[in-house]
């Protein structure tokens, strides 16, 4: 839809920007020109910003009848060649699971922002949660790999939304930006560089005349072919007359109802991510070298752990910090390696221990894994995290903290 990259209408410079707005600006900078959504607190501001800004850059904003439709509409738009996005929160995320699966199966680049609120069900519409982290991984039925990023500030909501589009395009997959009500509803400085300084990745694409439509294969084995691991995509209207289906399919996209086809299909879907884990996984690491305790966290919980960590370090506890900027795929090897040399992992998160399970799985009994949890509604209190750090180090939880 957008063959030329136009800079008209792009917001640049320094802005005091709401997190949700930053996600919208990141999307627009990444070349997103189609947004379909449904109002839901605390993600509504993403849609509101898109409804104002997309027409200014020649894009399309549409409010659909529900989140089922929103997710489908962005898939359809992607098959017309548009970079597309939707944004939602818990209840809408549940509805989107059906067609997130379709997006994965059809190998459709698109981005889904989940501004998480407390659940289950209607839960806490206005208040924070990180309770959809496992749903992000396993929420749609069947076997697949997914990519999920976790920003901790409006600036990162901007940056990671661009990265989400790049990963979506590169790997032909829906990418999840798993933020939360705290970051989404926070206003901070966001620095938007000029577009020339932002690297954008476009999907592998065959255009009219590139390939004889009779010999075009919309899905290929990830380990065959010279173009890399991800099959080039065709878009509607270019004369390839391709077929895609949510059914298990063969390389032409035709239904193939047997065990061999299923194995071929699923292996491709998982391999294209697993083979590129190192490229996809982004971590922020501090003081891991001589740590006895490592805090593993993500998003707002990682950010609010920084003060307790500094405090505990002052008390002589050797604490490292590992922030999952990419949550899925999970950095299994990194956690496994670290587990050998430390006493404990501490995992602060606003849920009943979701990423904790992943850390436990990878630590495999070699290090203790301690959760610090708040069950939605508010961010973690610094004191609560500090107490957990002291406990993990076997120190008494005494000194009243001084924030200054």
């Amino acid at each position, binding site marked *: *839809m957008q063959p030329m990259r136009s800079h008209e*209408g792009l*917001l640049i*410079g*320094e*802005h*005091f920007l709401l997190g949700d707005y930053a996600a919208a600006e990141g999307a627009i900078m990444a070349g997103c*020109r*189609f947004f*379909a959504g449904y109002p839901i607190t605390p993600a509504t501001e993403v849609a509101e910003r898109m409804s104002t800004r997309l*027409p*200014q850059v020649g894009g*399309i904003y*549409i409010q659909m*009848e*529900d989140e*089922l*439709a929103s997710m*489908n*509409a962005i*898939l*359809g*738009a992607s*098959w*017309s*060649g548009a970079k*597309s996005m939707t944004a939602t929160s818990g209840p809408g995320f549940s509805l989107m699971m059906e*067609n997130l699966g*379709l997006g994965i199966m059809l190998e459709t680049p698109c981005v889904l922002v989940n501004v998480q609120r407390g659940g289950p069900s209607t839960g806490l*519409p*206005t*208040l924070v949660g990180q309770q959809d982290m496992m749903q992000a991984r396993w929420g749609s039925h069947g076997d697949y790999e997914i990519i999920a990023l976790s920003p901790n500030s409006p600036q990162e909501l901007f940056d990671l939304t661009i990265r989400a589009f790049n990963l979506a395009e590169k790997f032909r997959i829906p990418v999840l930006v798993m933020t939360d009500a*705290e970051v989404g*509803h*926070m*206003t*901070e*400085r966001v620095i938007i560089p000029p577009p020339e300084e932002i690297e954008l990745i476009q999907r592998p694409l065959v255009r009219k005349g590139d390939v004889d439509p009779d010999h075009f294969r919309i899905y290929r084995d990830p380990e065959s072919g010279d173009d890399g691991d991800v099959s080039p995509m*065709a878009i*509607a*209207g*270019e*004369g*390839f*007359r*391709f*077929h*895609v*289906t*949510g059914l298990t399919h063969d390389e032409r996209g*035709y*239904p193939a109802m047997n065990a061999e086809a299923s194995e071929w299909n699923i292996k491709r879907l998982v391999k294209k991510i697993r083979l590129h884990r190192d490229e996809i996984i982004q971590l922020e690491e501090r003081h891991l070298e001589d740590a006895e305790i490592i805090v593993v966290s993500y998003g707002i919980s990682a*950010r*609010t752990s*920084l*003060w307790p960590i500094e405090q505990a370090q002052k008390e002589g506890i050797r604490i490292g910090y590992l922030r999952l900027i990419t949550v899925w795929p999970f950095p299994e090897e990194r956690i496994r390696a670290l587990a050998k040399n430390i006493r404990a992992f501490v995992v602060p998160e606003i849920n009943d221990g979701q990423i904790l399970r992943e850390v436990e799985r990878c630590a495999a009994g070699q290090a203790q894994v301690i959760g610090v949890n708040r069950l939605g509604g508010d*961010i973690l209190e*610094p004191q609560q995290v500090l107490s957990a750090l002291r406990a993990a180090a076997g120190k008494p939880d005494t000194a009243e903290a001084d*924030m*200054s």
Partner: protein
Amino acid sequence: MAGRDITDERQFELSGTESFGESDWITGLHPMDVLLRGERLPHIWCQGCGLGTALTTFIGALQWLEKNQGWDLDKVSVVSGIGCTGRIAGYIRLDSFHTTHGRAIPFATGLKLANPELKVVVISGDGDIAGIGGNHFIHAARRNLDITVICVNNFNYGMTGGQVGPTTPHAARAVTTQYGNFEYPFNLPYLAAASGASFLARWTVIHARRLEWTLREAMMYPGYSFVEVIAPCSTSYARWNPEGRGLDPEKLRRRGLELMKHYQAIGKVAHGTHPKDAAIKVNKEGAIIEIVEGVFSDEPKPDFQTAIDEQVQIAKGRWQATQKALSERSQIPKRTDIIRRTEVQLGGFGGQGIVSAGRIIGQAATIYDKLEACFTQSYGPEARGGAAGSQVVIASDPIHHPHLIEPTNAIIMSQEAYAKYVPKLATGATLLIDDGLVTLPEERRQDLKTYGIPATQIAEELGNSRAANTVMLGLWTAIIGAVSKSAMQRSVADAVPPKTVEVNLNAFEAGFNKGLHDQGSNAV
């Protein structure tokens, strides 16, 4: 609409030649083969099913459009959902999408909106479109997006074995209504009409030629067009119901044919029928006794795409204004002194600009003074009942914890906010109140440094009571000193409506001067 028959006339024009493609006597290719994925045949449909005819007429209409209207079929996309009809997407040699159950229409919506050059046709069954996808069906009709929706209705869920569906006639039998359907079905054209669809038609597959003409017309129609195609389900529906019962159950394919004959006998062509009168009639046993057919309505409505294009023009104009304002944003030297974590609580009632005031402080700190600031506001039940609260954290260093832990100062503009926020302030904090609205209680915290200003009164005197929050900001700037005066002035000017910049800057100045005067002495 009743009795109108101009459609027949148009159908005559659209009828054209009946022979489209070139058959090849050497290869034995059928003229329609170019639009079929031959490698996928034979299809999965049962003998006696009406879907073959539905597909044939659809292909015939496409080939006619290609030949007579110059359509480039590379630009046609077919989208279907799940079910027997949904498989058409897999047999037709066009860009084709076999999506999830009920979701063909929203998928098509995205496809069409992102590339308006495409002609997008949704073809799916009654369960898919009117059952699980019913919500999408009515909303697409409401939008009048230029797509064609073809719903092949066989009165039941055929693929899963003949369960009752949203179109199963009352009293008819299905696998899951063995005692007769106790519900009533949708009249689909009426549903679409009530939802705003502008082109509505129905044919049975026995009226194949008429159906094909209508499909041409529907696809050419500029707006949402809906065609219901009644097709026999020889395996499931016909097994249980009077129209199909009584036939030799051994002869499945006959059953479909007999059902088609039945449709032919009871079909009543009546173009222009009001959709409400187009319900499919059944007798007490649930046997279908009349199917009204024809083009019921074709009243053009404003096109969705045109409306979107108009919006783009307005939006681009607005962008020019935004860009101009941003380019005129002035710069001041970066602050070099160290600001320790300063936590500001703002509280008042809705309409006082408590949220804007917090944002103005944050914008001044970050954009102009180049400090770090994190602004949050109260949502949810906490923000109801007229109470408004917002919070800002300011510091030279990155702000790890975004919430107030020990608020070092507060701007309070209502008694309710005083009661709510003052107890939470840090020991020795600075409290700024609109003392025209807030009365300090007899028993109060003695550790606080409290400053008062009749902000609302001052703002009224300046000619705009809404500038009261700006008076408070002036006072705050002078007393607290965490953000520079010039940064605050610029931020105020950015935030308020252009016509009120002057009065707000005057309000700010009034507050600031009072602050300078009171500084060092506890005024209250």
